[in-house]
């Protein structure tokens, strides 16, 4: 990181953009991995009601609801930062890209807490009804 100063860039500006870009790449790749599994899981719809409900009982168990909070983070981050990148490219928002980033962190944070709380509430309700945290197929 010491080399940043020697490049003559404003230290903090460069850093925010760099971290934002790396996170965009990581969340994007995570979403590709997810969508691959998701389309495969949902294709069990073709097998009819029984097999579909069995699959969904597995992927809507408390464990997966907690994992979903992480997925929701990736979605919100990638979507909002993607909009920020588009705004920089098309709306000339380059000058303000750092403040925009922090505004979006707050907006995204609020959305994540609201949605995430909903998902965790579901998981807790299920466990109060006696559902195990770890799902078992065919159970």
């Amino acid at each position, binding site marked *: 990181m010491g080399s940043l100063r020697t490049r003559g860039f404003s230290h903090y500006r460069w850093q925010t953009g760099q971290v934002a870009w790396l996170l965009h790449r990581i969340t994007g*790749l995570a979403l*590709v991995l997810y*969508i691959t599994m998701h*389309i495969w899981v949902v294709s069990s719809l073709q097998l009819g*009601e029984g097999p*579909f409900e069995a699959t*969904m009982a597995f992927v809507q168990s408390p464990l997966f609801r907690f994992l979903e909070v992480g997925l929701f983070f990736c979605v919100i981050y990638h979507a909002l930062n*993607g909009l920020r990148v588009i705004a920089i490219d098309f709306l000339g928002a380059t000058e303000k890209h750092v403040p925009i980033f922090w505004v979006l962190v707050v907006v995204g944070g609020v959305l994540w807490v609201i*949605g995430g709380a909903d998902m965790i509430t579901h998981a807790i309700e299920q466990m109060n009804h006696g559902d195990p945290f770890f799902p078992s197929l065919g159970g």
Partner: protein
Amino acid sequence: MLSMLKRSGTKSGGSTAWIWQRITGLVLVVTLFLHYLFLHFLNGGTVTWEEVTQRLSSPLFKMIDLTFLVAALFHAGQGLVINIHDYVHRPGWRVTLVTLAWLLMLTLLITGTVTIVTLEPAYIDQLQLGAAQAVGAGGVAR
């Protein structure tokens, strides 16, 4: 075919990918929002067979889901290609991985399209009726 894949690493191929990554990104903001709204927040948080088949019996929802599918897979495929071009420099490996990435997207596109298009309650009733008749006939086909 191979030369086409190699050319996707050139400047012109790159800027086409660049603009499409932004267009599909904007489409995804809308479709992904609707997806979360209907499948997580408006249905009490639990997806059921009943609810999905109901919704997908509407041509409008089929269209929305197909748009979502195509935009997401195109965006995902291009995202993978961007990464392959950034980290893989040996031409042979590049072409191989880019081909595999698009083959994966094509497979997912076919799987997803079949799921969305064939999910017709009437069609499923027919299938189940057919199965019931087969059982009723004592397992003798036809």
